[in-house]
């Protein structure tokens, strides 16, 4: 009899276990992922306006328009007629306007049968138009808080509409993946910044100092990295752009050039090109009394990789010495140009001077930290560039 009771008890326990079922299980095929997020100024798209006319909508202020790139598109039925942007390319772009990013995200559920999850978000693009109005820490608040979104997600700015960058290009690949992979070209040219992921963005926002984010320009569905946008530290808003050369110059100052070229014109006005093999740079803050000044020392080794001047013989040492001087001058010009832009036009420091100062003179840094951009604009900076051409490749011509 006792055994029977125990058996019953076992049965009850067993049944209870089965009743729990699959706790909080979400089958992967019932989900879809958003891999790209584009934030634009809040203007409802035509589709949205039509939908809003038919329905009631919900109370909101149209502050941002968020566009998500959703993969994969359900391919169950035969989709012969393609409609809407991006459909048929393996992804789907959906826009929604509102004033809370999470609420906007949840609004997508009204339209899609599969819930979207944020684990695989690869890239966030913010239009410069939006970030002129809203500060970056407001816009990024949800993204930084959310547990699903991985810190490896990178952040970009866009010159035009951010959602245009998520439209398919000619290559047929998924734009978000392409944008995520593009910063890897950093080792080929200094014009591409290292990708700013969310961890780094968090620290940049938190430091209250100005910084730059890579900018994307689009034309006909083809996206290109085209310089960088400056985010002012104290306001968190966009104040202007730097072009490709300036981005490269900043990389030279920071010592963050892994590969790249310097092209200049020689004394016969023929182009010649220097390929960077390795470089070192050092920012030296000098504090005399209350007078602050910076010296930037840049040393580089490289190769004479292209020379259109047929009259010169690259195997001769004096030619290489002269060429070195020409390249050094070119870089100096680039750097001076950048400095003028930073100090006079935008009045910000985005090239790491402040950071070096805080390391070398922490006391002084504490004093000027809150108004560093103004202080920097008044600080003289000198450059000291030294190039060494180690070889001229396999051809002597």
């Amino acid at each position, binding site marked *: 009899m006792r055994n029977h009771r125990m058996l019953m008890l076992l049965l009850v326990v067993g049944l209870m276990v089965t009743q729990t079922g699959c706790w909080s299980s979400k089958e*992967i095929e019932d989900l879809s*992922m958003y891999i790209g997020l584009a934030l634009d100024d809040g203007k409802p798209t035509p589709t949205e306006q039509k939908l809003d006319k038919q329905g009631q909508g919900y109370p909101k202020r149209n502050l941002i328009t968020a566009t998500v790139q959703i993969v994969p598109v*359900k391919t169950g039925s035969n989709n012969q007629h393609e409609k809407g942007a991006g459909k048929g390319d393996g992804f789907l772009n959906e826009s929604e306007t509102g004033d809370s990013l999470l609420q906007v995200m949840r609004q997508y559920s009204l339209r899609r049968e599969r819930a979207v999850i944020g684990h695989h978000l690869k890239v966030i693009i913010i239009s410069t138009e939006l970030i002129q109005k809203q500060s970056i820490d407001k816009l990024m608040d949800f993204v930084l808080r959310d547990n699903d979104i991985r810190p490896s997600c990178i952040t970009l700015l866009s010159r035009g509409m951010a959602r245009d960058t998520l439209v398919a290009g000619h290559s047929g690949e998924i734009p978000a993946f392409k944008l995520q992979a593009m910063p890897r070209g950093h080792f080929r040219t200094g014009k591409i910044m290292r990708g700013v992921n969310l961890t780094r963005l968090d620290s940049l926002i938190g430091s209250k100092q100005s910084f730059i984010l890579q900018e994307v320009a689009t034309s006909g569905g083809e996206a290109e990295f085209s310089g960088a946008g400056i985010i002012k530290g104290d306001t968190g808003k966009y104040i202007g752009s730097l072009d490709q050369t300036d981005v490269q110059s900043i990389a030279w100052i920071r010592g963050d050039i892994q590969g790249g070229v310097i092209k200049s014109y020689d004394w016969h006005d023929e182009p010649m090109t220097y390929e960077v093999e390795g470089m070192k740079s050092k920012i030296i803050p000098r504090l005399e009394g209350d007078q602050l000044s910076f010296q930037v020392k840049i040393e580089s080794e490289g190769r004479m990789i292209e020379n259109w001047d047929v009259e010169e013989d690259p195997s001769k040492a004096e030619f290489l010495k002269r060429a070195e001087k020409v390249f050094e001058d070119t870089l100096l010009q680039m750097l001076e140009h950048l400095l003028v832009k930073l100090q006079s036009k935008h009045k910000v420091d985005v090239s790491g001077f402040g950071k070096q100062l805080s390391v070398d003179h922490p006391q002084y840094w504490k004093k000027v930290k809150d108004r560093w951009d103004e202080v920097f604009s008044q600080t003289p900076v000198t450059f000291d560039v030294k190039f060494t051409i180690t070889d001229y490749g396999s051809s002597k011509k």
Partner: protein
Amino acid sequence: MGCLAAGGLSGPDKKTFIAKQQVQVICREQRQPGCFCSLFYCCTMKQHPAMLIEWRGSGEIRENNSRRGMVHVWWSNIVSYIPDWPVFVQAGATLLIPVVLYFTHRWFRSVVTNGGGSSEKLTAATEESDSLLTGDYDADLDSIKQAIGSNDDLHFREYRVAELGIRAALIYIDGMQEDQLIDTQVMQVLMGKGDFVPEVELESSLPPADRLAAYFRQRILPVVEMEEVQGTQCLHEMVLTGYTALLVEGMPSAILVGKPRGKTRSITEPTSEALLRGPRLGFTEALSENTSMLRRQGRTELMEIKKYTVGNTLKRDLAVVYMKSIVNPDLLQEVEKRVAKIDLDFIAESGYVEQLIEDDILSPFQQAQNTERPDRVINALMAGRVALLLDGTPFALIVPVTFSMLLQSPEDYYERWMAGSLLRLLRFFAAFMSLMIPSLYISFISFHPGLIPTELAITIIETRERVPFPSLIEILVLEVSIEILREAGVRLPKPIGSAMGIVGGLIIGEAAVQAGIVSPFLVIVVSVTAIASFSIPMYSAGITLRMLRFVGMFFAAALGILGTILFFLLICSHLTKLKSFGVPYITPVSPIRLHDWKDLFVRAPLTLMKLRPEMMKTERKRRKA
């Protein structure tokens, strides 16, 4: 907390705040549960905000209030941390689970180990009093005929010993006697006159009955294997197992002259443990051949073989083999004790022995290693383990066993140490995979899509769109069919088996994907799992992991990656507790014995392995001179 924050508000710099803001601030604080103090502030604020500011302005009242409020603050803080009654009920219910599990387990264990009844061995009842042969030829013959004469294959060959003039009988089972030996060495010698030259002094006077047997043995019969039996029951058994018995008139015992001839198969390569490098020698079903195989491994005086009889109704020989001055005497004693305790009418295979002497009958893991390879046995003996060989099966048992032994192969030692270590690591990895991959698949697919690389996740979603089942059902469908296939493959003859493997593996997998029952990704998962499980060198360990895999799948289906981890921890804790003949199951790892790590995941060069395994606590520790 709310009170303190609210109190802090009354600083002189905060006084400039407009009342409305303060109300908002404090109302937010009010959400802290059970904080009466802030509630009080809040009520006042809501009703008379202006008054409160005034009131705060006067320092004396404020100080008074805060002193009186200290106790309130202290008390309400504590109260705020005491949860509501549902939490206590939940905690109680949660506590109940391990308690119930513990008692259920204990009850279940007691049922299983006691076998549902008392296990006292009825030694007295089963062993009948063995009556002795009388020496009266006719009476003895009659009693034998009466006892076992109903067997039609039993033959009596009666004749006269020519020279002595006494009657004798050969008793044998048809087909089991060695004709050649009996004819030439027994019959001819006893009946023939020509070459039988009796000594003169003995011819006249026959030796007395008690010395007759010795006389036959020493003087007459030119046979090596000869045994004298006095008990009738013993004689019956021996005759029925195939011995040829010689009964002589006036002799109060029988002489067993011929051993049973029964057919044995030839020695072949062990099929369950095939190796590329190493001896191609496997045990056979005959115990004497097996022990002789062990003896032939090398010349030593250390190896001892002790024989026990197991089985109450059908008796069989069980040999306990060990190395005399290497094995730990306590271990040997324990093995002998457990072997003596075996109580069953028939021991069919060494698996019976294994199950009857193991420590924990409820463990999914085997606690004795079975092997067909003499080299494996001899290596184990040299490490201080004990081997059990049962007559009638080619599988020897090695005790005690540790977990790492199940994933080691003799080849690890025969190949050079680097290659051996690599293979061994590979096997550990494969065992882990075959156990965990399906669980990980379920937890990733059903619970944690964020843990899959994005591109792969897209592919999986796309391929699983048409699959109507949740991942558990999907994987069960395929895993169960693979297991059935494997089981069917064992039964079928070899040529058909391989054909069916192709049909099952390729066609069913492909068709299931086409039909949308499973996703192509799952086919990869299941096949990798199956292949990984084939690489486990011990068949029985493979079965254990196959079984546990299903348990793991259910854990994963219920709780995701948490369940998978829970399952793994459960196995780990069970393994840590498990012992085989007093030796912890995963011993080089826990309890940690760093010396033995030389032969765990990697196989150190032989020159470094100077000592026998520490865990065996052997008598002679060093392997080198």
